[in-house]
Every structure is written in structure tokens, then in C-alpha cells.
């Protein structure tokens, strides 16, 4: 079937208008994806041309590199703790902000969003490093106000270092909070009214109305935050550099070190691809479990 001239030019115009996205996708997503997959089978140090070495990088990664497993462990620990904590915190703040419609609440909404705007940035990481440093704010409070005699090396002690980063993640609850807040506003007020007439208390309302109706939003936040959690980089790069004893050597940080410190691009590509697989699998599992607990309103069940 031949298209009329007008139809064809319509199609062309359509492609023309979405071309920025198409070009961006091809050049900055698809091409690097394919290129890094190919590079993962080579020895490539940036300066010379890549040399094909088969599965060497992959073998080294799984069977010879202790630090690879350190990185995996640190990242998993971070995801398992930071993501739920952040979501819980965001949820609580969203609940509180949803209580009233006063003007001041709008200001608070904006204020609470600020940490996550600046959160991924270098400046906040540097500040965090100061706060938990040897002569930082936390130790100052411990010593001078709580009368603690010894300084705690928050960033130097393998037991504590990762928790300072998890705490930082918790503090950056702004964007899931906003999404929660939008979700809360969607829940019809009648439901709460009916429930309170029937004598349901606060907790009961939360568990029987708020959480089920909010579950699609919770699910969305969970997936996004989990993916983001696996890619955490700046905080560890600036604050701890992976120390002590690799307890904060996050996966993305190790990929960066391999790529831009050891110039082992092939190996870094293999690592990056493995992370992609891990994230895909975890997301898949989350989607599978979602059938059990995510509630879509009647007629929209997928």
C-alpha cells in the first residue's frame, strides 16, 4: 500500500519532532550499551586499541577478585537498609504534611524537598564528611553535651562507616515523599469519614485504607529507589572512598575505580553489565511479588 504524499510527510514530521529523543537514545543509551558489552570481552586501557580476550574479564570477576565480592556485599547492604528506611521516613513525613492544608505546610513541603535536590551533590557529601569527621559536629555533641569521653571514628570504624552513608540516604527522602504526598491526596476523604463513623482508629485507618490504596505508589517508589540504590556513587566517592576495609566500596565506585584509576575498561564494562543483570533480576522479582500486595482499583487490575 502506498501512502499518500501528505500522510508520508505527516509521518516524517512526527519522526522529526521526536528526533531529539531518538538521537539521544541511540547515541547515549543504545550505543554505549552495545559498546560496553563488546568491550567486556576485551582488554582495553583507553590508550591502546582494545584486544579481544574472550571471557577473561568475567572469569577474573567471579573467581579471582575478592574486592568484587566486597563491593557486591557493601552495595546489597546499602540497598537493603537505605531503601526501606528512606521510604518509611518519606511516608511518615508525607502523612504529617497531609494532615492539614495550612499555607505553612506548603513551605515545609518545599523545605523538605531541598535535601534531595542537593543530596546527590558533592557539597552535601563534603558537609557530611565534616559532620561525622574526627573533630566533627557529632563527636562534639557526644563529648561536650552528652559527656562522652572518647571520640568515635565514624568514618574510620568498619562497624559504623556504612551507616553514616545510610543515614545520609535517609535524610534525602524528598522525592519519594512528594510522590507519596501526591498519592495520599488521591485517596477519597469519604473512605476515612466512613471508617471513623464506624469507629476505626488512626492505626486501623492507616492499615486498612491508606496503605492498600497507596500500594501502587509505594511499589513505584520501591522500584525506583532500589534501582537508584544500586547505582549509589557520589556519597562513597567523596566521603569514604570505599574505606574502611572495603565496607563502603559500593559497586559503582568500584566500577569507577577500575575504569578511571586502573584504566581497565574491559573489566569495568563486564562489571557494569553484571550490575545491569542484577538490577534487572531484582526488579523482576519485585514485579512478581507485587501481584501479592499491590492493590489496583477494580477494573484496572493488570
Amino acid at each position, binding site marked *: 500500500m502506498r501512502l499518500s504524499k501528505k500522510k508520508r510527510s505527516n509521518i516524517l514530521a512526527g519522526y522529526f519532532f521526536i528526533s531529539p529523543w531518538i538521537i539521544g537514545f541511540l547515541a547515549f543509551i543504545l550505543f554505549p550499551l552495545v559498546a560496553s558489552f563488546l568491550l567486556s570481552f576485551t582488554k582495553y586501557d583507553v*590508550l591502546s586499541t582494545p584486544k579481544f580476550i574472550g571471557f577473561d574479564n568475567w572469569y577474573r570477576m567471579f573467581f579471582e577478585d575478592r574486592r568484587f565480592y566486597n563491593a557486591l556485599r557493601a552495595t546489597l547492604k546499602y540497598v537493603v537498609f537505605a531503601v526501606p528506611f528512606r521510604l518509611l521516613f518519606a511516608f511518615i513525613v508525607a502523612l504529617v504534611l497531609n494532615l492539614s492544608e495550612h499555607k505553612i505546610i506548603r513551605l515545609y513541603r518545599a523545605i523538605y524537598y531541598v535535601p534531595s535536590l542537593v543530596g546527590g551533590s558533592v557539597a552535601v557529601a563534603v558537609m557530611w*564528611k565534616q559532620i561525622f569527621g*574526627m573533630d566533627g559536629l557529632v563527636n562534639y555533641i557526644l563529648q561536650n553535651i552528652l559527656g562522652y569521653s572518647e571520640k568515635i571514628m565514624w568514618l*574510620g570504624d568498619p562497624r559504623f562507616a556504612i551507616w553514616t552513608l545510610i543515614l545520609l540516604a535517609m535524610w534525602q527522602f524528598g522525592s519519594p515523599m512528594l510522590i507519596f504526598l501526591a498519592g495520599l491526596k488521591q485517596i477519597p476523604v469519604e473512605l476515612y469519614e466512613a471508617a471513623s463513623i464506624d469507629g476505626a482508629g488512626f492505626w486501623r485507618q492507616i492499615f486498612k485504607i491508606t496503605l492498600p490504596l497507596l500500594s501502587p505508589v509505594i511499589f513505584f517508589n520501591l522500584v525506583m529507589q532500589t534501582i537508584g540504590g544500586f547505582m549509589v556513587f557520589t556519597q562513597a566517592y567523596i566521603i569514604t572512598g570505599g*574505606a574502611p576495609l572495603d565496607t563502603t566500596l559500593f559497586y559503582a565506585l568500584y566500577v569507577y575505580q577500575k575504569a*578511571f*584509576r586502573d*584504566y581497565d575498561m574491559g573489566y569495568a564494562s563486564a562489571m557494569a553489565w553484571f550490575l545491569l543483570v542484577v538490577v534487572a533480576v531484582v526488579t523482576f522479582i519485585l514485579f512478581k511479588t507485587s501481584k501479592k500486595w499491590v492493590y489496583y482499583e477494580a477494573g484496572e487490575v493488570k
Partner: protein
Amino acid sequence: MKFKGVLVFLLLLLIVLTVNYSQQPINLRVAWWGSQTRHNQTLEVIKLFEKRYPNIKITPEYTSWSDYWTKLNTQAAAGNLPDVIQHDYQYITEWVNRGLLLPLDDFVKDNVINLKDVATNYIKPGIVNSRLYGINLGVNALGLVYDPELFKQAGFPLPKNDWTWEEFKNTVIQIKKKLCIYGVEGFTGQIECFKIWLIENGEWLYSQDGKSIGFSKDTFVKWWKMMLDIENAGAAPDVTVDVSRTGLGVEDQFIVKKKSAMSLAWSNQLIAISKAAGRPLKMVLFPRLDKKSKSGTYLKASMFFSIYSRTRYPKEAAMFIDFFTNNLDAHKIMKAERGVPISSRVQTFLKPYIEASQKEAFAFVRLAEKEGSPTPPPDIPKHAEISNNVIAPIWEQIRYKKIGLEEAYDTLKKEAEKILNR
């Protein structure tokens, strides 16, 4: 008619632009790493150079050490390197082997780069595969900075340049006991200190062929026993303290705050440390095995200037390096910030202009030249990878007491040699 007019105008514009372009001054790109002080000084020297050679324009490209190599490697991959590149002893061999640098012998022969006032010892570090690839920008030596005031307070004689490790260990532990401050900082976990220990023991990190570890278990264990003794006595910062204090500036060093009697430093850093401390500090050589042997302190080329092999203006780039090496006004600005200048004429010229701490640094370099050990070979290309992924993590485990010394050596040897033979 109108169309023709536009065409003629465009043609004229093209001609004007072409003519203009061909008359454009030569543009050299110069890259270096360093602190803000170095950036300011180097920019001033560049201004001086441009005044002297008005037909040459210089585009500076400067960053900190950690970003520098990432940037350069990316530029190298893109075939877009600067014309003049500040280079390091650690990487220069690798770069030469990849054909990225230009041999400078002809420029020296033709006197474009004048090295007549430079001792051969200072030229040697820039020679790779028997050709000259880097002009040494200054000479440094690693040593111990100490605070004479604190030694006096503790009732100790000042450290002597012929002291032994035994004396060193006793001194730092006694200082801790008397004054309740650290005896030495920044020392116990430093691989550079271990290198000096190896030199004194007649060993080196790697074997001659670069296929295996070059030091014995005995040397390794002895070193770490001493380091752990010092740390356990509280005479040096504990590993948790060191780790939580990474990335701090000079002004935060313990020696500056009178919380440590000694600190590890390169001779050119003495100037910044003294300035931050606001009182005179001195430098002493590394301790020796016994009174008869030599100190392992050695002279190191702090950094080089090299030329990109595919530069469009090799001669002008060489002229810039010559200016940097020999011009007296330039050195008056830089004041030996990159280490003691290699030209003896410049050294003599600078004398009336330098401050007390710089005099101390100059004297220390002379002392190291006379009483120290010969400069070891440059680090092998794989050293960076081994140091980052094997040595540093294992040393951390030792300091956190997660691994015994014997086991640490065996693991280190096994993992390092796997990388060396890959």
C-alpha cells in the same frame, strides 16, 4: 542582482577570515596538576612567556592530581593531548612505550632547551629507553619534618641525620609518653616509607624482570612489626583516625596543631607546612638500619615537562620548557614550588629571594644527595593497579588487625604476582 551581492560579500568574508586565520598566533596547550598556589604561579609565568614571545599564545589546562590523569587518558584516547604535558615518574615509561611523547635529545643538542647548567644526575630521571623524554622540573626528597620546640619540651635531643630505626622507634614512643601527643603522623601506612626501608635492605618492590614481588617475607614482617609497635603504643595515629581524616589540607595536619612531633613530607611540602604552622620546622633524613649503613632517603624528580609526540609546534613547546627551566624571572615567581630547580645558575640566583623554610628544604635536598641512596627505578606500569587493589587493601587489613603478618605477605605475593603475570 541582490543575490550576487550577497555572494560577493560572503566570498570577501571568507578571504578576510582565511587571511586572519593564517596570521593567528601559534597556540600551545600546556597541562599541569597542582594546588591553587601552583596554578597561580604557573599562570603568571605563562603571562611572562607570552610577553617575551608575542606570537605564541598559551592555553593553560590545570586540575588537581586525581582528575589530571583521568583527563589526560581521555584526551590521549581521543588523540587530542596538550602540547606540553606535566608528567610523573610513575607513568612516563608507559607513555613513552605507547609513543605518546616526543624525544627531546635534538632540542637539547640544538640548545633550544638549554641544560648546560644542569647536573647529569638531574637529567637522568627523564631518560627512558636511553632517550630523553621529560625535563625534570625540580628535585625533592622524602624525609621527616620535625618540630624542634616539641623535642625540647620533651627533653629530647633533636633527631640526628645518622639515627637508626631503633632510635626512631624509641623517640616516637617516648614523646608519646612524655607529652601525650603523637610521635609521628602520616607514616605507618605509607608505601613510600616502605620503599625506603626496602632500599636500605637492598631490596625493591618488584624483581628485575617485573614478574614477581622483590622483597622477602623477613623484610616485610620486620617492617610491619615496627609499625604496629608504634601504632599500638599510640605514638602514631591509629588506622581509624587516619581513615577518617583522609583528604584534609595541610593546615589540619597534627604537626601544625602541635599534636605530633614529626610528620612525613616531601622537601617541597616543608614550605607549606611551616607556613601553616607559623613557626620554624626542620627536616631530618630517614633512619638507617645501623650506624654504618646509608639512609634510604633518595632524590626524586618531582615532575617533568614532556611534549606530545603529535604536537604541531614541537619547537615552540621546547622553547616553553626551556623558559620554565632557565628563566630567572620565572623562577622568582615560582620560588621552587615544584622542588629545587635543576639549573645551578637558577639555584644560586634564587638564594637571596627564598625564605627560611625554603632554605631548609634546599639544604635537605643537598643532604639527601650527599648522604642518601641512589634513586630507585621508576614504578613499573602495573604498580598503580597492584598498589590500589592488592597492597593498600592488605595493609589496611593489617592495621585493622584482620590478618596476621605472615599470611598478609603470602596473600600479597600471590595476588600481586597474578596481576604481574597476566
